[in-house]
């Protein structure tokens, strides 16, 4: 069963004349790692809200077409039921944290699933460890820095152990080191869940692409509410570059796409060192 299936999906918010999303057809198979990107205001976050049922249940508006998450039609499935399969980490951690301690926020989801206390404890431990904030367990979310709040918000979703994880700009508040770390942890988590027998689908809505690139199986570009590109990461990025869609193509690729033909480069370099070596010496003869 596909993790996500959208059929001719359109949505506009109440009071808005513009369609935030129009005519989207999209299937994401179970186990994929997908980036959804596109210019600011293109409808990325709206798409994420649909996948979790927040649209149409919490955001009033007009929804046309169909949206299924693991076969559940989001139109007539309660958000609480979708939440057992799909967890979303919002752009703004303030929207996610509401109790007086990080521990309580992280335990909130599992408590609402009516899990036994020792299982809740295990999940809280695991979630805090996965994002590296065990030391903040008893802190008040209000006293944390922006980046720490973001990590707490992610932990509060991981404790639900969802099959589909949707992240809306998860690293926006994090320093470069923590960002790289978090992304690595997300995909390690995915791998370890898969080794334990369950597939996990990861959908990330992000402007920052560089850190994610090596983990992705697919990139989807949304522009002005429409799905304009969809495919393997490198092809999509090159196409965005050629068609001038303003997404954050990593600097190394910005240069690679411009010089590859002129310089006969066949494979994109991963680091600045590699780029310069390729330019200096050309492609190595035997791979």
């Amino acid at each position: 069963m596909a993790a996500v299936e959208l059929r001719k999906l359109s949505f506009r918010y109440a009071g808005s004349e513009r369609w935030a999303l129009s005519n989207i057809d999209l299937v994401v198979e179970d186990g994929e790692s997908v980036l959804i990107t596109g210019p600011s205001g293109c409808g990325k976050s709206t798409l994420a809200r649909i996948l979790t049922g927040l649209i149409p249940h919490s955001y009033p508006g007009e929804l046309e077409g169909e949206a299924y998450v693991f076969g559940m039609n989001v139109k007539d499935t309660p958000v609480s039921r979708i939440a057992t399969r799909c967890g979303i980490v919002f752009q703004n951690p303030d929207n996610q944290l509401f109790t007086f301690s990080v521990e309580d926020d992280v335990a909130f989801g599992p408590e609402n699933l009516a899990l036994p206390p020792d299982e809740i404890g295990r999940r809280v431990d695991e979630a805090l460890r996965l994002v590296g904030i065990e030391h903040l367990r008893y802190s008040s979310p209000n006293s944390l820095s922006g980046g720490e709040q973001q990590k707490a918000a992610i932990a509060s979703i991981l404790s639900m152990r969802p099959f589909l994880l949707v992240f809306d700009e998860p690293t926006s508040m994090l320093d470069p080191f923590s960002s790289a770390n978090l992304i690595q942890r997300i995909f390690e988590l995915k791998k370890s869940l898969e080794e334990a027998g369950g597939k996990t689908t990861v959908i990330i809505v992000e402007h920052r692409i560089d850190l994610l690139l090596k983990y992705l199986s697919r990139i989807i570009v949304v522009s002005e509410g429409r799905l304009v590109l969809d495919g393997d990461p490198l092809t999509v990025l090159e196409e965005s570059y050629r068609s001038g869609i303003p997404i954050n193509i990593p600097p190394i690729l910005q240069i690679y796409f411009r010089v590859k033909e002129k310089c006969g480069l066949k494979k994109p370099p991963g680091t600045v060192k590699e780029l310069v070596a390729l330019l200096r010496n050309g492609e190595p003869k035997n791979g």
Partner: protein
Amino acid sequence: MVEIAVENLYFRYPEALNYALRNISLRIGEGESVAILGENGAGKTTLAKNLNGLLKPTEGSVKIDGVDTRNLSVAKIARKIGFVNHNPEHQFFAEKVEDEVKFGLRNFGFSEEEVEKTVQEVLSVFGLDEYRYKNPFQLSGGEKKRLAIASIMAWRPEALIVDEPTIGMDYAQKLNIRKVLRSLVSEGRCVIVITHDVDFAASICRRAIILSRGEVIGDGGLRELLSDEELVEKASLRKPFLLELEEETGITGLEEDFDFISSILAEAFKKCRS
């Protein structure tokens, strides 16, 4: 013009056991472009809020043009030093985008004619014309960020502190914000940018103040500091792309214009042109 002087600043939040900032002394003056960098929780935002009097030192002092922030109202400081919060929603309260921009202007006694003209100007600079009558909370993440900056920039403060200006921005908008901040710098205004985006910081700021666990571990030329690998690692940062490229190629003076860089590189490594 404005001068901010920080002396032996210690700051502790009321309920906290530890100091969020320790023993900070620095001066930021007219026309400077400063990046405040450091890992999550290092104290960057806390320092910024001390610089504009939103927070008052627990010990030590912050003086703005020689006057201790303890003796200045937040509004009075805001006229000189604008602060753009990292979370735009913390800043919004009006029901229309235009009212968000008008609010500060009216409070600072601009005439209605000036208010009208300025609103038009800043909304256009930030690409928000079409949202003029929309509710700020209905904007997308990136649009909210632009409005937050626009509504502060409107009254042209002498110094501007921007907390994480690139969050939620696509490439075109980042270039747009960069252009705006650079033009402020070239007008001789002081621009202080708190960011994790080292490439963005390097494209605007000459000076960097690097914080780690509430202390300044580096204060000086941005390029020099971010070339120091030990320091960069300690602060959970990374070297800016262009700096790395310059070091690897020996070509200097690169600007973030990929057409330009690509042609320079292709030219420099002629071998690959054949």
